[in-house]
């Protein structure tokens, strides 16, 4: 297991500097997003609207700190963009705005929108016989939304083989609804399901490298077991850290842990 400590530190620095952000939700998914951009997705950071790119839609938009840190790492965003996070002079905010953020494919925030949009993107690409693939990253809490299951149903029945949903199964949903067998739910909707540890580089590599995206195959759901707030001892779990801004002392402690 290899944690992305630098990305986590950058996320915390952005949140601390601006006084806005969801650290645990970002830490939950930053390893997944980094793996996708590092090993799976086809893109051109200097031409984010490249016609042959894969589409990555962050459906749980409040985890955008993870997306921004990764887009910065791979050259979509500048140092200044990160510095200006959540300020009037910047382009990055508490949820991504596709009209101004290079690499953001959807303006998410209201949960239950990004994934069904990804279903439409996958269908649109197939209609045009294009080889681009669509990936959507969902929260398990987001899976409370009815549109997730409406569109999961549609995607399986349309056999959108060019679509992959990644579910950040960090246990948020089960706090309210303990009946939470996420793999069984996606299987019941007709999806090809894979289960991984969403913080394990080895498991991500093993799973994503063997996915096939044949036209008219079943859509794929990668259920990623994750830990909310993963990487820093006191941000892990469910509680006060969901939307908390670190104090100076907490920031020092966080930095020290990530530097270790």
């Amino acid at each position, binding site marked *: 297991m290899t944690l992305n400590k630098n990305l986590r530190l950058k996320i915390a620095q952005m949140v601390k500097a601006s006084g806005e952000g969801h650290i645990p939700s970002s830490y939950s998914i930053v390893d997944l997003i980094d793996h996708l951009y590092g090993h799976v997705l086809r893109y051109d950071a200097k031409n984010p609207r490249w016609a042959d790119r894969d589409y990555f839609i962050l459906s749980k938009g409040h985890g955008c700190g993870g997306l921004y840190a990764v887009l910065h790492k791979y050259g979509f965003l500048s140092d200044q963009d990160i510095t200006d996070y959540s300020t009037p002079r910047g382009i990055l905010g508490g949820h991504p705005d596709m*009209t101004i953020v290079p690499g953001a494919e959807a303006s998410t925030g209201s949960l239950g929108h990004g994934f069904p*949009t990804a*279903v*439409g993107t996958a269908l*649109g690409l197939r*209609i045009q016989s294009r080889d681009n693939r669509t990936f959507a990253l969902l929260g398990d809490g987001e899976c409370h939304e009815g*549109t997730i299951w409406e569109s999961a149903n*549609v995607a399986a029945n349309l056999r959108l083989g060019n679509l992959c949903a990644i579910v950040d199964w960090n246990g948020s949903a089960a706090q309210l609804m303990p009946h939470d067998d996420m793999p069984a739910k996606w299987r019941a909707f007709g999806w090809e399901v894979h289960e991984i540890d969403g913080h394990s580089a080895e498991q991500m590599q093993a799973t994503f490298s063997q996915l096939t995206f044949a036209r008219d195959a079943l859509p794929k759901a990668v259920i990623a077991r994750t830990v909310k707030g993963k990487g820093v001892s006191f941000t892990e779990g469910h509680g006060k850290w969901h939307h908390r801004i670190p104090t100076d002392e907490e920031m020092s402690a966080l930095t020290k842990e990530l530097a270790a």
Partner: protein
Amino acid sequence: MKKLREEFADTMLEVGPGDPRLVVMVGDISHGILQPYARACPGRYYNIGICEPTIVNMAAGLNKTGLIPVVHTIAPFITERAYEQIKLDFGYQMLSLNLVSVGGAFDYAQLGCSHHCYTDVSLISHLKRGVVVLPGSPVEFNKLFKETYTNGLINYFRLPEKPHGVEFARDDIRFGSGIRVREGRDVTLAVIGTQLANALAAADQLAARGVSAEVLYFHTIKPFDADLLRASVAKTRRFVTIEELSAHDGLYNLCLRATLGVNGVSAAQIAIEDFVHGYGNYEELCARIGMSPEGICQTALQLTRKAA
């Protein structure tokens, strides 16, 4: 006169083969009449099912890939139920959509209030990039759809079940322009959709009582032809709106704004105040809320008497 829904299907069949970007998605209605389009445009017709918010979400995805989506189903479900999808996925994201509804107002009179929709026009109008077209005859839909569907905006077409029956010349239909259907000098009747028929009948009744009514018909409500309305009211000083819309935001509001600064104007509105409970056919529900030749005539007469 051909039904608007049939014209919708025919227009898709006319436009689709020549524009490979056009994709039609429906919420399990009009499936049969769209089969000629589906056969002519393989892979570009989808009966998605009973999941209107998802259909609108998906349309945003289609548009992201360069396609031009047309989404069609019943007005309350595709506008009120899916409004957040329209607002965020198309408004916030600056994407383009063509929504074509049936069942606006109380066209589904006998199915009850669950199938009524009074706020659709207002909801879409709230979006800066929203366009609202209310075709009341087949030629209006055909011409206005073809003029607008590639404009990159959020286009809403509300198709009434019953055409108004007036045969307009194709050249007289211009996007964003109202039509002076009848000239008059004493009162302006401003009307949308099927109610044009009642307004013209009311104008006849008013003429028999010595009141000259001017009838203005608006097939496009956003953008609104304020100049036509203002010029008419500057002459008549009175107007009545007849609109199958919520009384709280619709044609009356537009007309009031258009006549700001015109002195001595009196106005009245015939619209939908609240759920139109009960059942009956469309005409019976219209009559219940004063949308009849007699109701319009009485409202206009009250205005003219007040002014006198």
